[in-house]
């Protein structure tokens, strides 16, 4: 028997396979189940008209780390033959849509297993889509995306980031809203009726179908031209040497005392960042002591400042700080850089206090006192 079936399938010319690739960029663990449900939802909805597909997670992102960006994918094709062009890969080289299920991801992403920070649009094709779940507007979000190297459409489906733990899924319909939004962006691939029918059949719950329709109806788009976006994010790129240049014996140089890891900075894992009220700080050292990422550094005045390049945003410092509102966790989207702030406090305390209030919405207690300076 022939191993290749001769069927009515249209012969596919090499390089002309019809495929649609969607990636879901998400916060490791917190949104693992969500990303899985979106990717599976895409493939299963495509089955309504006998298309086929594959859903998979980026193998290298596993084991996922809490908060650290990770990716899952859905690739759909009309035929098995065409799908082969999207199989046996860790990730599609080019995607039609990149979905960011937490809007702080638009500042760029670095998975724990990669080298270098990637703009959120990096694998998106010319005139493809970046779809973000956010309560911000596309205009606001584009301020935080890396300067576009090619045009794309930024789409926003309303909603905050849906975070959950590994075992207990937060069933807030984010997945259905995203599927609805995807149907809007890719009508040729994911007709809204197919998505609704698929969800109706699998969940037997009309409320979920309503959420699909909501996502479809409420997605807002904005074209992003080449060159739009910000230059402020650090360019973190890494050239991999070849075998003749690598040290033999699987050896890498140790870090120097006082140095931080220059090749992996981890801050793209952050959704919130700690902001310190240096006026109320009692210099108890607890934030420094209990930080699992070594991100606090002592200042000459005995304060502890956050090195934002190293901070992963876990919030332990705010939790262990004995002074109320001395360390406040603030939405990462509010910040445009990773500059350490103690210098500002030291040189222009009032400006710092104003900034503190602006960021935290809290009064900077002690603003009438002079800033502590070296030697305290």
């Amino acid at each position, binding site marked *: 028997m022939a191993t290749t079936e001769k069927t009515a399938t249209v012969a596919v010319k090499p390089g002309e396979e019809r495929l649609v690739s969607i990636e879901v960029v998400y916060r*490791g*663990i917190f949104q693992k189940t969500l990303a899985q449900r979106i990717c599976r939802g895409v493939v299963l909805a495509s089955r309504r008209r006998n298309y086929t597909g594959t859903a998979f997670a980026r193998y290298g992102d*596993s*084991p*996922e*780390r*809490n*908060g*650290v960006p990770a990716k899952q994918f859905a690739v759909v094709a009309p035929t098995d033959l065409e799908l082969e062009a999207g199989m046996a890969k860790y990730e599609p080289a080019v995607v039609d849509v990149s979905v960011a299920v937490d809007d702080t991801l638009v500042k760029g992403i670095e998975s*724990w*297993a990669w*080298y270098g920070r990637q703009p959120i649009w990096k694998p998106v094709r010319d005139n493809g889509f970046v779809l973000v779940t956010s309560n911000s507007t596309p205009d606001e979000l584009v301020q935080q995306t890396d300067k576009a190297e090619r045009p794309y459409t930024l789409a926003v489906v309303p909603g905050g980031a849906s975070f959950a*733990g*590994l*075992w*207990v899924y937060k069933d807030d319909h984010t997945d259905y809203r995203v599927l609805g939004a995807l149907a809007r962006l890719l009508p040729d691939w994911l007709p809204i009726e197919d998505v609704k029918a698929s969800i109706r059949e699998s969940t037997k719950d009309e409320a979920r179908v309503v959420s699909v329709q909501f996502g479809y109806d409420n997605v807002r788009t904005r074209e992003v031209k080449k060159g739009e976006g910000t230059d402020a994010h650090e360019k973190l790129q*890494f050239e*991999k040497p070849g075998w003749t240049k690598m040290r033999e014996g*699987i050896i*890498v*140089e*140790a*870090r*120097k*005392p*006082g*140095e*931080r*890891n*220059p*090749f*992996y*900075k*981890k801050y793209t*894992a952050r959704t919130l960042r700690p902001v310190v009220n240096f006026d109320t700080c009692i210099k*108890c*050292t*607890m934030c420094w*002591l*209990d*930080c*699992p*990422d*070594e*991100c606090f550094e*002592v200042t000459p005045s005995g304060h502890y400042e956050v*090195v934002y390049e*190293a901070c*992963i*945003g*876990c*919030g*332990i410092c*705010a*939790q*262990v700080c004995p002074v109320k509102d001395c360390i406040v*966790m603030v939405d990462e989207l509010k910040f445009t850089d990773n500059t350490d702030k103690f210098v500002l406090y030291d040189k222009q305390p009032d400006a710092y206090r104003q900034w503190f209030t602006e960021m935290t919405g809290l009064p900077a207690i002690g603003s009438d006192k002079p800033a502590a300076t070296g030697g305290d």
Partner: protein
Amino acid sequence: MAVAATPNATLPQIKGVKDVPYDELFVSGHRTCQGCESALVMRHMIKAAGPRTIVLGSTGCMYVANTTYYTTPWVVPWMHTQLGAAGSAALGTSAGLKVLMRKGKLPNEKINVIAFCGDGGGADMGLGAISATLTHKEYNSLILLYDNESYANTDIQLSSMTPYGAITTFSPTGKAKRLMHTRWKKNVPGMLAAGHPESRYIAAACAGYAVDLMNKIRRALEVGGPTFIHTIDPCPKGWDYHPQYSQELGHLAVETGIWPLYEVFDNKLNLTGPTRQIAEGRKKRKPVVEYLKRQGRFAHFTDEDVDHFQGEVDKMWEKWLIPGVIPFTIAEKDRALLRVDTTPLHEVKKPA
């Protein structure tokens, strides 16, 4: 750049948080989770041990997440060892240094050797090798078991350290079986202390009590010979809680009496921190439900499950020969055989 050798270096006990060494020997840019308590254990471990230390890391989170090729967060020399090989790595490294110094092939100095392993590597696969190493009293090394209560690097699978009833990917909850995992957690430090009379230092610790942990590490390295420390490390990923609560979960593990803090120094038990206060009756044990309800891995627990858990912990405190350490007891008629030091606990002097 290496730090100069100091042949007679000693590691004095740390007096308080202000006395904790400032320099980082495990630096930022490791690829661990938000709120990773095990990363904090690494940080404290090497802070306490200092720069003239060789660290051997067996496979697990603290290998894979920390040391991703071409980068490393370690300032000190560090080498990978296999999942079940923490004991052997410590032994081989220590023996190598010892003989080379004796033969004059390496300058004579005190170099600390620490091998760490997770609960899978230490309490499951590598327990035999650790046990062997603890009998080789001529070789100085510390084995540190960081226990996040699952194979957390591979996807949160069940280990012999996973607590009763907890969800892991190998023990999910389902319609037919609410609890897939009904084994009680192994008592590793107690077992090792009971079984290795020539190991001079075995302790249970928690990074939520940083100074206590660092002092235990220093004491283990100072007394010499093979030593062992077991830390309980809240894991926001596998335990399913918000990463900001890692410290609090560690405190709760101790305050509920689930994880007693102690050290066995030259065959003498010394309870430390809140565990001592509980034992002395100065602090009331918190109900375990306060700990369990904070974690998604126990979200499926019924009242019955909680009661069972509480009952087992109560047994640890009320029935065991030594609360939380030695799980068997002695028949009433044999009470006279017990060589019990009757000094009240609060009068037992802490080892210097």
